[in-house]
């Protein structure tokens, strides 16, 4: 498997997309990670407070486990995963085969908006990494 080289240009383009679509919509933090649990981008006011390495590893494993659950019931995969807390929520969205977008938000932002914005930026982010 080839190594992934993350240039400043790729990171800046991805970060800009995430900032415009999700951070400006009011979400607290967004992590863009790969399927191996590497952090590719970390955005948002709470992004620096979060243990991004642990969260990325758990998110990648969690979505991987969810894919196995999907197979057990005859689905190929579940493309998203959502956990609701008392005040904080987390949304995991799969972008293509290798990327995962982890969005952390409070009850002030609706899940529908997060899902909509994640869907909107999925292809543009994939285009950046495939270019």
């Amino acid at each position, binding site marked *: *498997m080839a*190594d*992934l080289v993350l240039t400043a240009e790729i*990171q800046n383009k991805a970060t800009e997309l995430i900032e415009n679509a999700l951070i400006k919509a009011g979400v607290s933090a967004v992590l863009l990670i790969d399927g191996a649990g590497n952090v590719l981008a970390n955005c948002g006011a709470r992004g620096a407070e979060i243990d991004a*390495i642990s969260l990325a*590893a*758990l998110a990648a494993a969690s979505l991987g486990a969810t894919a196995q659950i999907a197979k057990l019931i005859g689905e190929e995969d579940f493309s998203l995963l959502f956990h609701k807390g008392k005040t904080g929520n987390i949304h995991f969205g799969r972008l293509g085969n290798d990327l995962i977008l982890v969005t952390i938000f409070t009850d002030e932002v609706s899940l529908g908006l997060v899902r909509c914005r994640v869907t909107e930026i999925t292809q543009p982010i994939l285009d950046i990494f495939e270019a």
Partner: protein
Amino acid sequence: MALIDLNKKEVHCKIVYYGPGRCGKTTNLLHIYATMNEQHRGKMLTIDTKGDRTLFFDLLPLNLGKISGFDIRIQLYTVPGQVMYEATRKLVLKGVDGLVFVADPLRVRQARNIESLEGLRQNLLDLHMNLEETPLVLQYNKRDLVTPPFPP
């Protein structure tokens, strides 16, 4: 698959401790955590489960200093050793850059070592990787237990 972040000047590598159940994979990580300088190690992540066996994985991030101006960041993972957790092992192996196969040298565990190594080979093939082309350390563990009263 290493991640080379040219923006932050970091190289991230994933090393997985693999081996049969009870061979000492988590103990390896705990020992590294206990003996490394706090400046060079991150927070160890262990998923709490009932009992002392690993059900998902353990993670220990390390910062090994600079090479040619790039920070070398290593993430050490363990897999669950029990036979039934094959799917979880495959998940953890995704994107692995190097392996430590922890073998249990007790004679009674020989078959389990072989079974685990064969499982590793197959899991890598399923991920389109080849054991012969992946950096691998074979660790013959528990050599401090070779003298009686422990069984050979």
